[in-house]
């Protein structure tokens, strides 16, 4: 029996579609079926099967004429942080229940322009605030992976946990994610897939529900580095509707993949060797260093002295921006309202009921650090620390072309295991947050399995707008790691 159509990589599917060996409708139907039998993962919050079939029929017509875009006929899933015209867009929050945007996000519009087929919207931590996908109003997502000999449900990471589970569980060929502090890379590492956070400004933020505007960036989540390169090519580009999207040419990312890494200088930041890092993470990192050395790269020890301050500074900057961005959810213009006779009481009740506890916690932190008398002590200081973090990276670029680190301090953990301790949960992002604070592109590539049989990722961070080198190194690691493990599809028995 040949492999199911859902096992193709995005690149393989693209080539088979172009050669008319498979139709977009067959490919789409196979994915719709896979989604229908994966309810136990809770990866999707909105199913758009009818739309997918219509998209696929149109793609087959175009492919039949020999035209079509970069992603013509490719079934993808969309993180529910992207506004999709006339299709429910919830951001994982009750407060956006029933919201149907009258417009389309630029990133998703770019995907449709290139012919992608929309399967549905994926579950996520509420307003992208979380590292385990447990803060969603629509319930936690289950990681398709389970530890060896253990059938406990594990988190897929977050906040793009639904997208990660959908890609890892072969429910789509690729998915969009967003990354504010690690929300693409950490779930990618936890589910054994590739996740790429582009440079801040590479993808438009227009139409993406805002969490922390100076950090948020959309990116692809796929099963291979090549697939991420293809998908980013479709998502990226300057957009007049986002003044922070940068007007620089989008290169042919796929062409960068097979470039030799010979002679590239790879920095190993000393400060990322954090006390208490499990031995298997340190070993994985050493393995990654050895792989790149064998491929001809030069390994250079570098120092990024302000690394340890990136996460606490993030927990000022991100909540501050979030408290401002989330002020718009007032029960008046869209979504959920808790009726009261008095206007202020209506606002307060709507937000008390509509937001979950993690979102409320962060809005309160943000409100506090921006409040009169505290602004200088917290927000201004954090923005200065951010300058120092960015300067650390700038200095490193004098001697290296990219950095190699682990993506996370450990493998996926159990649902409920860390929910009682916010700071323990925040520490999940300790290795991913610095790239957001400095706006740099970074990729996570599956590189090995933990002793418990769970995937672990390595991260490559590059210079601003140098996604090509990041992808090139990601491809080199992928080739060396030859990570071909797949989760056992236990969820299909539970359909």
């Amino acid at each position, binding site marked *: 029996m040949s492999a199911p159509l859902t096992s193709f990589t995005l690149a393989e599917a693209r080539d088979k579609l172009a050669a008319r060996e498979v139709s977009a409708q067959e490919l789409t139907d196979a994915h719709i079926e896979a989604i229908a039998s994966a309810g136990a993962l809770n990866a999707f919050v909105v199913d758009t099967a009818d739309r997918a079939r219509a998209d696929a029929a149109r793609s087959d017509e175009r492919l039949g004429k020999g035209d079509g875009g970069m992603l013509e006929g490719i079934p993808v899933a969309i993180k529910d942080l992207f506004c999709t015209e006339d299709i429910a867009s919830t951001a994982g929050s009750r407060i956006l229940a*029933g*919201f*149907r945007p*009258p*417009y389309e996000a630029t990133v998703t519009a770019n995907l449709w322009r290139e012919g992608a087929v929309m399967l549905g919207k994926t579950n996520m931590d509420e307003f992208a605030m979380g590292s385990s996908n447990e803060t969603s109003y629509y319930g936690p997502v289950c990681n398709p992976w389970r530890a060896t000999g253990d059938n406990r449900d594990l988190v897929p990471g977050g906040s793009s946990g639904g997208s990660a589970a959908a890609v890892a569980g072969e429910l789509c060929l690729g998915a969009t994610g967003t990354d504010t502090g690690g929300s693409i890379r950490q779930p990618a590492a936890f589910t054994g897939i590739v996740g790429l956070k582009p440079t*801040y*400004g590479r993808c438009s933020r227009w139409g993406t529900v805002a969490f922390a505007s*100076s950090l948020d960036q959309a990116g692809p989540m796929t099963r291979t580095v090549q697939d991420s390169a293809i998908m980013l090519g479709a998502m990226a580009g300057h957009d*007049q509707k986002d*003044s922070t999207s*940068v*007007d620089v040419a989008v290169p042919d990312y796929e062409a960068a993949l097979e470039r030799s890494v010979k002679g590239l200088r790879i920095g190993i930041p000393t400060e990322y060797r954090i006390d208490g890092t499990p031995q298997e993470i340190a070993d994985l990192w050493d393995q990654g260093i050895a792989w790149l050395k064998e491929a001809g790269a030069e390994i250079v020890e570098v120092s990024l002295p302000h690394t340890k*301050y990136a996460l*606490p*500074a993030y*927990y*000022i900057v991100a909540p501050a921006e979030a*408290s401002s961005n989330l*002020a718009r959810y007032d*029960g*008046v*213009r869209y*979504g*959920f*309202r808790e009726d009261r*006779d*008095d*206007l*202020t*009481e*209506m*606002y*307060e009740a709507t*937000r*008390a009921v509509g*937001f979950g506890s993690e979102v*409320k*916690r962060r*809005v*309160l*932190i943000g*409100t*506090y650090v921006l*409040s009169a008398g505290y602004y200088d002590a*917290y927000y201004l*200081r*954090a*923005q*200065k*620390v*951010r*300058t*120092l973090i960015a300067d650390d990276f700038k200095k490193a670029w004098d001697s290296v072309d990219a950095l190699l680190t682990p993506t996370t301090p450990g493998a996926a953990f159990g649902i409920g295991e860390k929910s009682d301790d*916010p*700071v323990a949960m925040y520490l999940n992002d300790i290795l991913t947050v610095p790239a957001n*604070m*400095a*706006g740099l592109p970074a990729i996570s590539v599956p590189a090995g399995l933990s002793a418990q049989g769970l995937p672990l990722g390595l991260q490559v961070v590059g210079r*601003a*707008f140098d996604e090509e080198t990041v992808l090139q190194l990601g491809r080199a690691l992928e080739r060396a790691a030859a990570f071909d493990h797949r989760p056992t599809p236990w969820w299909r028995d539970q359909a």
Partner: protein
Amino acid sequence: MSLDKATVARIARLARISVPEEDLQPLAEELSGIFTWIEQLNEVDTDGVVPMTSVVGHALHHREDVVTDGNRQDAVLGNAPESADGYFVVPKVVE
């Protein structure tokens, strides 16, 4: 750094989130824990450091100052929990 109940009540009011009285103390303790962790930032010497304003330094685009969108009253009101006669409806605020 510790936040007391009164401070939590004040910021909850500023954030327009109602917090029941019995939740104020546990929330104060939880937020105090987070702020204690955040305050390791005080170790950093930030004298003379310019605060970050834009992570990717680039000049903003200029565009013609013209209307590019509009006349979409139905779309604007379409998601409102309550609307009437082209307006959003809220509880009465003036007697």
